[in-house]
């Protein structure tokens, strides 16, 4: 399996196989506590929470709270942390996690200043850590581990990797895939910001060599050129598994931010046309509607049989 699977579920010989510990930064906040409970209900092994000043307490009478990620890591050896703090405190929280040796940091907050994101990415490079987000719904292996805010119902364990810039479209499209019989091996929310800790192309590299992968779905949106770069990588790497894309924002006006900080077309840079034409060049069909994704994927699979 690949590195991301090693971190998220481990190897069968590990004592904590499919029970990897997760730290929640901001566990006592309204948002953090809601999603801490949802993650635990899903089966994620939440081993510690971090809220500076509340060390020594317990969350819901079971999860120990620490003042820093360092203390939490010393006590639990966890390698995964998810951050629910407000955007203005993200930089500090992320540094705390990376300095403490966290290897996978999932950054939920929206509205993180881009300079803060750049600084965190630089530190993560030095520390050899993976950042998912910011402004992401998170990452999950269905039925194994959920490190994020996604509702559980749309997802089912299977053999399709789903990479998405959008949260709700990830749910919508995974739902459609599941109903059509396509479970997911992993889903990665890239995030809707202009700069992402894990870009679409990085996420592709993480999942392309999953041994039993049967297909891939890419959910993009207007803004930037990460879809174009991914399409080029798919061409260059001769990746041949059935792949389908969806691009949101074809009808969006230029030079307007469409909800996500990163969803903006400047001139022709970031336009849906540019992304669709690159995917076409890579022989990847682009669905017109979310509901069309499983139909196109089934079509691709038939052809590759």
């Amino acid at each position, binding site marked *: 399996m690949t590195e991301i699977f090693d971190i998220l579920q481990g190897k069968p010989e590990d004592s904590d196989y499919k029970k990897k510990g997760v730290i929640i930064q901001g566990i006592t906040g309204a948002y953090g506590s809601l999603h801490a409970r949802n993650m635990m209900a899903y089966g994620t092994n939440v081993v510690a929470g971090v809220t500076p000043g509340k060390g020594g307490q317990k969350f819901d009478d079971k999860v120990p709270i620490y003042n820093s990620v360092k203390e939490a890591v010393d006590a639990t050896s966890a390698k995964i942390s998810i951050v629910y703090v407000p955007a203005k405190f993200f930089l500090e929280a992320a540094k705390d996690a990376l300095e403490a040796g966290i290897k996978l940091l999932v950054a939920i907050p929206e509205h993180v200043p881009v300079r803060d994101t*750049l600084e965190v990415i630089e530190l993560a490079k030095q520390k050899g850590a993976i950042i998912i987000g910011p402004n992401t719904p998170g990452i999950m292996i269905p039925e194994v581990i959920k490190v994020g805010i996604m509702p559980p119902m749309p997802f089912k364990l299977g053999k399709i990797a789903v990479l998405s810039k*959008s949260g*709700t479209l990830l749910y919508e499209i995974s739902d459609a895939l599941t109903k059509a019989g396509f479970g997911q091996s992993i889903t990665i929310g890239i995030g809707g910001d202009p700069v992402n800790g894990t870009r679409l192309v990085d996420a592709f590299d993480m999942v392309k060599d999953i041994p039993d992968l049967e297909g891939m779905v890419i959910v993009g949106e207007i803004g930037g050129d990460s879809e174009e770069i991914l399409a080029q990588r798919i061409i260059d790497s001769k990746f041949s598994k059935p792949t389908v894309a969806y691009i949101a924002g*074809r009808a969006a006006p230029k030079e307007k931010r469409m909800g996500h900080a*990163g969803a903006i077309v400047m001139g022709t840079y970031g336009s849906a046309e540019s992304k669709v034409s690159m995917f076409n060049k890579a022989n990847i069909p682009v669905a017109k509607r979310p509901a069309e994704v499983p139909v196109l994927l089934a079509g691709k699979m038939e052809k590759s049989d």
Partner: protein
Amino acid sequence: MRLLEFQAKELFREFGIPLLPSKSSTTIVEGRIHAKELGYPFVIKIQVPVGGRGKAGGIQKCQNDDEFELKYPQVMDLTIKGEKARAILLEKMADIKKELYLSIFLNRSKRCYTIIASAEGGVEIESVKNQIIKEIGMGDVSDEVAREVAKKMGLEGKTVDDLVDVLKKLSKLTIEKEAELVEINPLAIMQDDSLMALDGKFVTDDNSNFRHPEMDKYQEKSEIEERAEKSGFSLVELDGDIAVVGNGAGLVMSTLDMLSDNGGKPACFLDVGGGATTESVYEALTLISKMNRVKKILVNLYGGIVKTTVVAEAFLKAYDDGLIDLPVFSRLKGTESDKAKEMLKDSRTKIYDSVEDAINAAVMGDSN
């Protein structure tokens, strides 16, 4: 947020980037005073937050009072790419030798700041030839890097020193104000070989606004946009008649696309964010009730764990309170949708099983 030219130039002035004398006004009375102070000839420049002003007639040379009286109101009345004039900038005419291009922008795919420079400026960036591209990490530009850029542009003598100076100031501005893009196009070489910023473009990283209260004065928000922001919504006003509401930017964009594919004209993009509650949907309907052009409302909520009955309550309350009297076409994914349908049976809100059905009904005008 994209600043207007005169606002970008205020920042340029503050950071010592050389500019021609200029004055901004919003009335011709004010403009006449500026015309006297500047003296002819000067250029009348419309202030709109979009490019392509020259082509649209928004930049006019002005040699005397008669021309001024004719052209000022003409330029003021222009609408460019849907944007009305926010102000008029009068700027002294320059006698220039050559137009260069210079910018620093947030390079999204490389995840660093990047300089673009060219000796062939004065046209839109897509058409700028012989671009020199230099990645600069977090935005710092050293003397060496600046000199290297100037040399690659083919500059000589005093102009090299001037470019080093302007580029370093541009870098300082980008870092201190947390810009996504700062562009000088054209950056003119004057007859005496000095440099002068003839235009200015500045795009902020809105997520850093909380660190820049000094930039608040440049914020331009309608009352509706301000309320939307307070509620944590994202709102983009469009010119059609069907308001589009949903949760999640991707989902609302996708709804907008499908509506347009079916011949519908969206009146707005309204993302209520994360989960949907009675309060958030009621507030969304309140905002929409203030947009006169809206004739129908299309709602697409992917609830996940949200109870659709909670959303149905908001619609019922909005009708009861007389807030809206418009048909609502909605697709609510979530729990208890049969109960929600029952609740809305006698109202003007209809719930559809798929977004496609809701869109078809909205476009066809099937409001029962």
